[in-house]
């Protein structure tokens, strides 16, 4: 509070230039959200006005000066039923409308472009499929459905873009998704709305919506050299995943080509769609997600790779449509699955718990 008088000047200046009562509508879902919003506003105003008018009217008409003797009225069942059923009906309409909208916000179309968002104290890291990373910023093309897959490395965060009317928590240990289709190029606010510790209020940034062409230019300008999938491929080799998942006749793990999106039968008999969440789980908690016909010998990678690593692996597995390259890597780096490489992998693992020996023996 070291500048009292500039405050007033600043204030008037902003009053004239910056004042708004409603956020911009910059996504396809925004007008739909606002339609429901204004519907509820109208319902509320109607209800509020009714109560207000009655209050004022009764206060004037039945003021003690004007109406000194009260008439003792017990009540009216008819009126009670009326004002139970009419609000109930309205609320149910609002519920149904809201539910439809909610499912629309959280059900992405099949052709949506996926962007990963990793939240950590106190920044957002967004990862485009081409390997472009951004901190506290997100560039997206207008007119294209974008799916965000969010995860947090530490505490709950929440990814909020008011202009798009969407918001989703990034939670530790599990992917959440949301999608949007931006309509108007421009720069919009991006906030973390779930309280996440000291610098919660600094965990904000901007979303830049560009035309398709500008977006393409931006992509080529900010490429980091390797796409997510390429990073994943490197990680896949360095973690020796290809020692088992190599589609050879003697392979101890299932082939991963075209596995993404397919229906798998697990050893528990459960049938499941291999989506992002499944792939993540089977990397970190493999024993619960073993494909039928395979032994639960895969070690857990919990604590060995961070969320970005997992994302890169998943992106790699998603794009894997043949095992050719994996086998190529095996040959070129001479990582033939042998007992020695197996024990090396075991030795290299850092496990905090004592006596982990034998944990992965078949």
């Amino acid at each position, binding site marked *: 509070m070291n500048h009292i008088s500039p405050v007033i000047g600043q204030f008037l200046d902003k009053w004239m230039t910056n004042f708004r009562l409603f956020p911009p509508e910059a996504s396809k879902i925004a007008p739909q959200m606002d339609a429901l919003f204004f519907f509820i506003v109208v319902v509320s105003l109607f209800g509020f006005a009714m109560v207000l008018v009655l209050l004022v009217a009764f206060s004037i008409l039945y003021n003690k000066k004007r109406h000194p003797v009260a008439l003792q009225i017990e009540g009216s069942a008819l009126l009670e039923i009326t004002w139970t059923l009419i609000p109930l009906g309205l609320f149910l309409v609002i519920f149904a409308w809201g539910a439809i909208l909610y499912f629309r916000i*959280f*059900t992405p179309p099949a052709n949506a472009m996926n962007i990963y968002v990793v939240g950590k104290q106190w920044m957002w890291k967004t990862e485009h499929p081409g390997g472009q990373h951004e901190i506290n910023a997100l560039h997206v093309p207008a007119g294209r459905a974008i799916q965000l897959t969010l995860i947090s490395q530490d505490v709950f965060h929440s990814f909020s873009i008011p202009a798009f009317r969407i918001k989703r928590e990034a939670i530790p240990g599990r992917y959440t*998704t949301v999608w949007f289709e931006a309509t108007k190029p421009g720069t919009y606010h991006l906030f973390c709305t779930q309280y996440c510790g000291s610098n919660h209020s600094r965990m904000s940034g901007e979303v830049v919506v560009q035309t398709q062409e500008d977006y393409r230019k931006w992509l080529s300008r900010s490429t980091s050299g390797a796409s997510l999938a390429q990073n994943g491929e490197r990680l896949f080799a360095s973690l020796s995943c290809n020692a088992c998942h190599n589609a050879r006749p003697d392979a101890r793990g299932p082939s991963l080509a075209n596995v993404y999106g397919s229906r798998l039968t697990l050893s528990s008999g459960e049938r499941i*769609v291999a*989506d992002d*969440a499944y792939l993540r789980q089977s990397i970190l908690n493999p024993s619960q997600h073993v494909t039928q016909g395979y032994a639960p010998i895969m070690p857990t990678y919990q604590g060995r790779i961070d969320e970005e690593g997992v994302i890169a692996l998943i992106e790699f597995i998603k794009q894997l449509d043949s095992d050719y390259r994996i086998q190529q890597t095996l040959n070129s780096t001479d990582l033939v699955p042998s007992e020695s490489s197996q024990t090396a992998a075991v030795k290299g693992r850092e496990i905090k718990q004592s006596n982990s020996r034998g944990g992965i023996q078949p």
Partner: protein
Amino acid sequence: MSESIHIVVGPRVYVAVLLSLLGGTGITAWTALLNLGIWNPVIALSIATFEATEVVLYFMWVKYSPRLTWLAIAACIFLFSTLISLSLVDYMGRAWGNW
């Protein structure tokens, strides 16, 4: 309001309940050692519920208590099941679909 609460429950009832409770404990411990698949939890929890009901009715004299006590217990059981079932709506729902 409730004169019945002042009924004195005698030793015979207590002994009978005691014997059935000890018997129940024996049976439930024995069946747990057999592998009955899905029936293990079912049997264990049914016997536990049976025993708990006996304790509530006789050791805690609810059988001889006013309706108010029954009502309060029913409210509590209802709320307990609300906590469990509505949480399970979330937990089971998460497993259903991939949204």
